[in-house]
């Protein structure tokens, strides 16, 4: 039984979360973010209801035709989404650090409840719940005699998922709290993400195999899935449907055991936290190499003033120390490799398009960096504001570093495309170059403005925590969409006239206003920063 003090504490935490949301609306940016969040909320609602309806209809069809064993597929889909989405999309979810509550006199039970209840309020849980309910309704409508079993099975499935997702999250959070293990985790996540990209091609390949072979693959995997909770959930229903309630109950017991295991692991972690572990895992004194008194000279970029060189060097060092950013850089090439999949003569003459498409993707993956270019600097932004350097030089140096990264990325891509397919024809090289002349200054200009008007402190060292503000995300995506659309339109014109030099010419013409606009904006940056410096510094210096 919960004590009145525990109830008060839980209610206080709920109030704090509510006040955090309300207070975030005080600023214009907060209100703009609310609009972006509302749009995201609508999308989530649509996904929840649409998914629930689709799964419900499928479950109804399977239950009415007696093919209950196929329900396992859908429980697996829900399970995988529920468990993997929060990890993959930490960029889209905001987690309040409830471990900060430890300084208050919370009992362990209250602390556990707070972590469990408030941590579970996320998109994946909302969608997972809706979809599970959709399955439950579908099964119940098709086979009313299964209602009690469906209720028990789905309830067990939901409880297990909530517990497991929290367990996974707190353990990952624990590993992420140490910088080194955080970076290792970043690499693992990234490899996982890449692994997921293989699912499509793999499915595509298997779908082309004869049906007998496909069934052989499925038969090999099937026993393994049956002993895991999503498979067990479906088995409860098939067993109950077959009129074997004892066995169904025993299988339900297995889900309870799985949930118990998840609960124990969660308890293990939260108890360590509750007992006051050192979350940052202070490395303590370490062996250092004898002092190297020689401090190397900084870089010197020819034709550019010293501050531009210094900022360029700093940006490149930051970039080279960000594991996630480095991996992001390789994404376009990986995508091309995945699309190719080792097939000989893949797409034939259409392979010319790989280079411009890959180049477009290169710009896209740079969005976070370009549109929130001071985010990674945190409090360091004050160094730029205090220095006797015109701010346009700071912004220009940052753009120069971003351009250098882009060029490197495109060169790697060009090399990859040339090795895998063939060197792109000159017309395609030209149209890609001209598209960049148009798209890069436009992106840099817009990125500079948003970086100043809507900055958000981020940590480029941590995977999945490089999210810019909601306003920036929406605005940058709109700009990218427009820029890509214009590029596609120019290519379509070239295709229509069977001459891609026309596309290059169109893009070259569009590049002129884009470059002029960038230069004009750059010249005004010093005036803009005078009005924005306080907001920018306070936003980025915030802990």
């Amino acid at each position, binding site marked *: 039984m919960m004590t009145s003090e525990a109830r008060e504490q839980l209610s206080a935490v709920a109030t704090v979360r509510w006040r955090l949301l309300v207070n975030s609306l005080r600023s214009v940016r907060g209100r703009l973010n609310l609009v972006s969040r509302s749009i995201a909320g609508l999308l989530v609602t649509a996904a929840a209801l649409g998914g629930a309806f689709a799964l419900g209809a499928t479950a109804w069809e399977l239950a009415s035709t007696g093919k209950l064993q196929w329900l396992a597929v859908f429980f697996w889909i829900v399970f995988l989404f529920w468990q993997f989405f929060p990890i993959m999309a930490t960029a889209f979810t905001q987690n309040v650090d409830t471990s900060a509550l430890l300084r208050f006199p919370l009992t362990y039970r209250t602390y556990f409840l707070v972590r469990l209840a408030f941590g579970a309020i996320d998109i994946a849980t909302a969608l997972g719940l809706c979809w599970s309910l959709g399955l439950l309704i579908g099964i119940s409508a098709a086979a009313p005699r299964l209602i009690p079993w469906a209720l028990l099975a789905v309830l067990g499935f939901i409880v297990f998922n909530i517990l497991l997702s929290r367990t996974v999250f707190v353990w990952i959070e624990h590993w992420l709290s140490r910088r080194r293990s955080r970076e290792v985790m970043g690499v693992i996540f990234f490899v996982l993400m890449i692994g997921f990209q293989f699912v499509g091609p793999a499915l595509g390949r298997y779908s082309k195999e004869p049906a007998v072979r496909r069934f052989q693959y499925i038969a090999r995997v099937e026993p393994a899935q049956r002993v895991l909770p999503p498979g067990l959930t479906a088995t409860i229903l098939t067993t109950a449907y077959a009129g074997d309630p004892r066995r169904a109950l025993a299988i339900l017991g297995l889900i309870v055991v799985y949930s118990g295991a998840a609960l124990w692991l969660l308890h293990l972690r939260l108890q360590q936290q509750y007992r006051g572990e050192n979350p940052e895992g202070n490395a303590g004194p370490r062996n*250092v190499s004898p002092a190297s008194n020689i401090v190397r000279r900084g870089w010197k970029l020819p034709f550019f003033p010293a501050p531009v060189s210094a900022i360029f060097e700093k940006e490149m060092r930051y970039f080279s120390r960000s594991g996630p950013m480095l991996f992001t850089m390789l994404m376009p090439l990986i995508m091309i490799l995945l699309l190719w999949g080792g097939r000989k003569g893949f797409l034939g003459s259409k392979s010319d398009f790989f280079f411009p498409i890959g180049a477009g993707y290169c710009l896209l993956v740079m969005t976070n960096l370009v549109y929130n270019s001071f985010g990674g600097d945190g409090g*360091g932004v004050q160094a730029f504001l205090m220095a006797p350097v015109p701010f346009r030089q700071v912004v220009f140096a940052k753009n120069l570093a971003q351009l250098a990264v882009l060029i490197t990325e495109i060169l790697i891509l060009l090399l990859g495309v040339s090795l895998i397919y063939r060197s792109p024809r000159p017309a395609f090289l030209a149209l890609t170059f001209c598209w960049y002349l148009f798209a890069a200054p436009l992106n840099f200009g817009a990125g500079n403005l948003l970086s100043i008007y809507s900055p958000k402190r981020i940590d480029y060292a941590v995977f999945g925590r490089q999210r810019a503000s909601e306003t920036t995300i929406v605005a940058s995506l709109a700009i990218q969409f427009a820029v890509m659309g214009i590029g596609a339109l120019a290519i379509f014109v070239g295709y229509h006239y069977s001459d891609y030099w026309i596309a290059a010419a169109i893009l070259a013409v569009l590049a002129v206003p884009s470059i002029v606009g960038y230069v004009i904006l750059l010249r005004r940056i010093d005036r803009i920063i005078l009005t924005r*410096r306080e907001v920018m510094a306070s936003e980025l210096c915030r802990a």
Partner: protein
Amino acid sequence: MDAAILTESLTRRFGDFTAVQDVNLYVEPGQFYGFLGPNGAGKSTTIKMLTGLMAATSGRMQILGLDLAMHLVEVKRQIGVVPEGMALFGRLTGSEYLNFAGRMYGLDRTMAAQRAGELLEFMELSDHPKTLITDYSHGMQKKLAMAAAVIHGPKVLFLDEPFEGVDAIASGTLKSMLQRMIARGATIFLTSHVLEIVERLCTHVGIINNGRLVAQGSLDDLRSGISDESSAGERMSLEEFFLKTVGGPRAASQELSWLE
């Protein structure tokens, strides 16, 4: 001779709230000036305005005779700042950061590297050549921020709470460096909550309360009560004078009834 720091009716408002009102500061070259005040009195806001990190709503500011609004870049070249957030780049090493800071202040690459090396030695940070700043302790970060603020040999140094969170050893290093700078003619303007440090280091003090400058003068004059007519003749400690000026602790009757 121009004042090192001069403000006239310096005011800063945030909406309806006035953080700094009609502040007239006068700091002569070579002075070690302590800027004191209770929490929220307007110290950091003033220092931010003086260093170009924040605009003033009204009033005039001059640093070394240069109007801040007219010659912002030139003023920045002459000053060094350790702001509230220290302005460090966590993912650089100490030497990379100092190199960066030196070049931002116009030093050539060789000189920036040479001074960075010297400063790292002086601040006892050279044993950590590969450590990223984010992995430094708080005290090490403070020392590094201080090193970056002085790498170009500024004539005026602004320090916002330089000793906060710094241990006695690091604090000693910082103090000796500041005293050497004063001996060489630099002007230092510092805010601190630690009155003992101010009393030991500073020659002049200004006290701000509720956004207004309520006392200003040499430490000796203030302690002797010369700038405070009500206590003329009495010699007080800085703490006594400070508490007297800003209002002091609440009376016993105002204490919390439920605390035994």
